[in-house]
């Protein structure tokens, strides 16, 4: 199918029927939607999911009690008709939808929810989804009051408890075995029909899916979804252009511009996403780097000066062709509720940065910045090899900092080597990496902000907080985790965001835009910033026949 044909097809439809009429006319259509997964799904067990590909499959095949609406970011009832979280945020009571069946025809009951929670919270499973619920020691209790009514009791308060059920796909208590996870049974709109390792995953519509549209027709509209396992973005783009794929998620800004120049109606920039790119200095006391460098990295003034001397606007404009926004802090403005609107953009002020460094005892000598002991200010900035955008940002930062006399040596390492330096040997000076954020709630980042945590990257696993501001962040994070009032929680987390911006342990650089492309054959698509951008409403998507 050529682009020309596509175009004339759309014009005809638009003229004859109007868009809404077209959607309903096509709604009976069925058909197959095709798009790419960028990695091999590591598991089909919905409770052990952690990689992007498995998350996508879980989203399309799993049934959840509560769903975060990807567009409004509000909670919506799914398999639970209603729910209630107790005041102490330790228990949640669900009223389950009746008459729902698994894809094998067996009924869905409170037993299945209880089984899912018990299995999810099994410490031996080491499930990332389960770990997120584990705020205190002790067992999770489930109380079934009727086949459609049940309560789950947690040993300690879990902040944002209801939201976390968006990630919990309910499995069947009678048919679930780990080795047959590919075969389900499923509660979502689609079921896994075929898995060809390294090649593709075929999903077919779940004949027992419970949802119907406003006209009473059964969802999903599509007959099947073919997920090509394709790590190469060039090939994904070619498939899309040839009409062999209908959607591209998380499109690169280069490809976005290329597609936009050919057919602007196919691409969609939903604005800043939740994902951020940041750099940080090594503040680990035992790190094998010279003491004078540790002293710079531990100085707030130094970190702030470096942050001020980086031109974020240029990073967005040059590296991402304008499809990124300067980052304001730990959370992107795309996170509607949790973003602290008091944060101001970091302006590019190399002169002010130099002045504040001079006030700290640094001085310029022949274009090179030196510290008070006469050491040249130079550091290496590591990023993962093969990521064109990060390498580009590193090179731009290199030139920006050269202007204040700081020499940066850009080093690209393969990912495992980088992680080893970052988490085990601490043999690095500065790292530039990104954070992919799928959760809206700050609780998901407890392991990043708590000073004792493993993922507190600039200085992990501290026995006691080494600085006053880290102690304050610890206190605020714990306070928000145990508070049940969302406004109170927001107040605490706003303060955390402000401290992070003041102290710059992470120098937040940019938030990438959520870019996607969809073929003109796909109807009903409405790309959003949250994962999964283009197919969040897969059950309501339709595909026009090519002829």
């Amino acid at each position, binding site marked *: 199918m050529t682009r020309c044909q596509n175009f004339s097809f759309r014009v005809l439809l638009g003229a004859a029927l109007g868009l809404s009429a077209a959607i309903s006319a096509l709604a009976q259509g069925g058909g197959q939607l095709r798009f790419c997964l960028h990695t*091999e799904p*590591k*598991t089909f067990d919905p409770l052990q999911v*952690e990689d992007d590909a498995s998350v996508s499959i879980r989203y399309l095949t799993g049934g959840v009690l509560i769903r975060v609406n990807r567009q409004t970011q509000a909670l919506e009832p799914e398999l639970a008709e209603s729910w209630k979280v107790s005041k102490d945020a330790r228990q949640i009571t669900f009223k389950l939808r009746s008459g729902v069946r698994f894809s094998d025809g067996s009924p869905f009951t409170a037993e299945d929810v209880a089984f899912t929670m018990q299995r999810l919270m099994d*410490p031996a499973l*080491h*499930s*990332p*989804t389960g*770990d*997120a619920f*584990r705020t205190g020691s002790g067992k999770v209790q489930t109380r079934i009051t009727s086949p459609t009514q049940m309560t789950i009791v947690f040993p300690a308060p879990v902040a944002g408890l209801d939201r976390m059920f968006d990630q919990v796909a309910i499995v069947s208590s009678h048919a679930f075995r780990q080795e047959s996870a590919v075969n389900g049974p499923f509660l979502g709109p689609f079921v896994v029909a075929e898995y*060809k*390792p*390294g*090649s593709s995953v075929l999903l077919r519509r779940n004949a027992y899916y419970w949802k119907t549209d406003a006209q009473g027709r059964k969802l999903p509209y599509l007959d099947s979804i073919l997920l*090509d*396992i*394709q*790590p*190469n973005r*060039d*090939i994904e783009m*070619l498939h899309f252009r040839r009409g062999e794929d209908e959607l591209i998620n998380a499109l690169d800004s280069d490809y976005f511009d290329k597609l936009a120049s050919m057919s602007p109606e196919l691409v969609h920039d939903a604005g800043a996403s939740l994902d951020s790119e940041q750099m940080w200095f090594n503040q680990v006391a035992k790190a094998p780097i010279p003491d004078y460098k540790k002293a710079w990295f531990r100085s707030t003034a130094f970190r702030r000066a470096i942050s001020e001397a980086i031109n974020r606007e240029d990073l967005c404009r040059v590296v991402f062709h304008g499809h990124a926004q300067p980052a304001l802090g730990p959370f992107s403005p795309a996170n509607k509720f949790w973003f602290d609107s008091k944060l101001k953009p970091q302006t590019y002020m190399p002169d002010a940065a130099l002045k504040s460094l001079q006030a700290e005892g640094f001085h310029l000598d022949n274009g090179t910045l030196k510290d008070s002991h006469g050491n040249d200010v130079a550091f290496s900035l590591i990023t993962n090899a093969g990521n064109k955008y990060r390498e580009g940002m590193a090179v731009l930062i290199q030139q920006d900092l050269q202007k204040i006399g700081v020499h940066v040596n850009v080093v690209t390492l*393969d*990912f*495992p*080597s*980088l*992680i*080893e*330096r970052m*988490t*085990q040997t601490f043999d690095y000076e500065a790292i530039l990496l990104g954070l992919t954020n799928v959760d809206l709630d700050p609780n*998901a*980042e*407890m*392991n*990043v902000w708590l000073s004792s*945590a*493993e*993922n507190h990257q600039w200085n992990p696993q501290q026995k006691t907080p080494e600085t006053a501001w880290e102690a304050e962040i610890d206190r605020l994070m714990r306070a928000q985790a145990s508070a049940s009032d969302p406004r109170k929680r927001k107040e605490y987390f706003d303060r955390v965001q402000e401290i992070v911006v003041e102290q710059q342990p992470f120098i937040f650089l940019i938030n990438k835009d959520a870019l996607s492309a969809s073929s003109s054959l796909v109807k009903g698509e409405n790309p959003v910033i949250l994962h999964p951008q283009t197919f969040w409403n897969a059950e309501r998507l339709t595909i026009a026949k090519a002829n």
Partner: protein
Amino acid sequence: MATLVWRIARHGVIMLTIVLLGGFLSATFMRLAPGFDVDEREMDPHLNAASIQAVREEHTQNRNIVRYYAQSLAKALHGDLGTSISLGQPVAALLKERLPLTLRLVALGLGMGWAAALALAMSAACVRLVSYDVASTLLSGLFLCIPAAVLALLSVLWNLPGALAIALIVFPRVYRYARNLLSKAYSLPHVTTARCKGLGELRILFWHVIPVAGPQLLALAGVSVSMAVSAAIPIEALCGLPGVGQLAWQAALSRDLPLLTSIGVLITLVTLLANSSTDVIGQAMGSQKA
């Protein structure tokens, strides 16, 4: 005949030793490479300390490389090649699924590459026209200069089979050697004599040129197999072909020791089989000639 059997047996023993040593060294290299006992999952902020510890322990089991290798050899004797760390599937099943595609790709690529190279080299040596020689050299030179990755992308762009990319990688390298060997053989005195006596070109080629250049061409055939096998890795990875090459690439990036050791042994085995069989045939040819 007995000597041939003895040679094959001796080759077999040497091959087995090399294969085992190759597997061990592959595993050792990977053990020594940085990032061996780290896992991307450690970066997941959802995981708590106990789960991160569990992830780390998965890797530390394989820390003692000698013990690991001995254990996996013992298991391999019972047909169990272990389970891939990154994909969570049995290595034997993964290889079985993906091997046919790679074998087909490599065989087709080698066939096309050799056919093109030999045709061009023989015609260049027979015709002995300077312009023809220069043109064919330039053609092969052009393909020699284009990176494997670009060839792979071009084959995707034009919807050509991946085997063609392998053929285009093998072709110029084989052509270079083959042309030199053949032109050298053609300049030998006995060929000149044969030509003076009025022998036909084909008879000269098959009776007087190929027997001289044969052993080296065979050695080249062995080398070209490992060339094609190593080219298959980037080509499969870039063209998105689900073969062993793509698997090897994934295994390398995720430091998947059980998977990579098996693939290492497999690649060593293929290389050796190709080289040894050409050696045996070459020696047999040599002894017949003698």
